[in-house]
């Protein structure tokens, strides 16, 4: 079993337990929102997902910087998996965000909301990550360029939020301010647990994909050693490092 597989079972169980607890709290403990009623409950999925996705993008940038420092391929693979997972979480965020906006503001999309708009811009940027990788054939160059992209795009995430926020008035429910927020106690507890669950889910999926990649590489290496060079089909051109 590879290093990534170690502790995966325990982590998966912890994730399931935390998410189950979070959903139990969402439906049975957290009070109904006075304004928005039941619809507001999507907040406990949408916001943790958005925060996890953004942290995942920045995390991918940090791992990309590690690749540029060391030149070891494993860092690029880690960076790729981090961004890949964050993209999936990001798509989920856009969908849940749209549902929430439709239910509470009556429109699928609201331009005047800086958080929504900046998230879209970040997604548009990271959506080019896979095409960029796919467009470079040489694996070493692909890793290097993708890492440069990851570093630049990771730094872009906070900057973009500053710029877009400055451009618009606040419409988004500002429940999470640095000053501690104006979330009542039970809601805050529920939110924190939902955030922890989403974070754990991200880490579990990250480890899972890493373990799968490591195992596949190991199998290839073993095959090559046992059955000779010809037994392994050459790698096809791909955006994913393996």
């Amino acid at each position, binding site marked *: 079993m590879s290093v990534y597989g170690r502790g995966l079972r325990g982590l998966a169980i912890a994730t399931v337990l935390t998410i189950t607890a979070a959903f139990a709290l969402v439906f049975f403990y957290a009070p109904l929102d006075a304004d928005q009623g039941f619809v507001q409950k999507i907040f406990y999925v949408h916001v943790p997902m958005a925060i996890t996705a953004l942290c995942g993008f920045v995390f991918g940038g940090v791992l990309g910087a590690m690749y540029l420092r060391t030149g070891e391929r494993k860092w690029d693979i880690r960076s790729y998996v981090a961004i890949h997972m964050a993209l999936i979480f990001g798509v989920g965020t856009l969908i849940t965000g749209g549902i929430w906006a439709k239910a509470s503001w009556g429109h699928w999309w609201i331009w005047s909301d800086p958080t929504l708009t900046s998230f879209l*811009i970040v997604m548009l940027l990271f959506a080019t990550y896979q095409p960029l990788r796919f467009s*470079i*054939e040489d694996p070493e160059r692909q890793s290097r*360029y993708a890492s440069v992209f990851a570093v630049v795009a990771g730094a872009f995430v906070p900057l*973009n939020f*500053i*710029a*877009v926020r*400055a*451009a618009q008035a606040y419409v988004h429910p500002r429940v999470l301010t640095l000053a501690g927020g104006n979330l009542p106690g039970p809601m805050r507890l529920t939110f924190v647990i939902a955030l922890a669950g989403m974070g754990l889910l991200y880490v579990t999926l990250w480890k899972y994909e890493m373990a799968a990649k490591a195992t596949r590489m190991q199998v290839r290496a073993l095959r090559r050693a046992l059955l000779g060079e010809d037994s392994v089909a050459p790698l096809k051109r791909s955006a994913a490092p393996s």
Partner: protein
Amino acid sequence: MRENRAPGTWQTVVTVLRKDLLLELRGLETVPAMVLLALTTLVVFHFGLGRDTIDGQLAAGVLTVTLLFAAMLGINRLFVAEREQGGFDAFLLAPVDRSTLLVAKALALFAFLVVLEVIAVPAFGLLLLGPPLGRVLPGLVAMLVLGDVALAVIGTLVSAIAVHTRARDLIGPIIGLPLLLPALIGMARGVGPLLVAHGSSWPPGKWVLILALYDVVFALLSYAVFDFLLED
């Protein structure tokens, strides 16, 4: 033994910049195309919007998009000569600091953009803009210079990434546009108040600051990662 000394940073920058400007001056490949595209875009906007004159935020948006289109042409062509004629290999063989290529190329792109704007902005004032330009010129120039720095720095970085990819004409714009968006927001919002009749004559400080901050951060970031795009 003076002949064997490696050239200094500025000497390299000036040499590469001079080569690029000379090449453009003799070939007239990029800048005339950028100017023509900008002028044509203005005509398209005239018909697309169905307006003879525009002002305010709409005018700022039209100006920003026009300059962006033209800049994209320049960004796409920035490293073409290097790739086609082995300039990259020659540069890597020379005993010089690699980041100097970023500085020189960004300065060249900046120069192209300035020439473009010297022609395109008066043309914009003449063809589409309602309020006169003269009064707000200092503020407008300040905003455009800050925007040009962002276009030049990010454009050079993206062009260097894209030039070695298979689909380089596609990769450049799709990565470049989202990265430029905050700068374009700043440029459009900063220029907007200037283009209102009897409006303010200086852009809002907030946008000058954000644009300047964006320029500085991306200049440092590009400088830090540029070396990795040249290694071979």
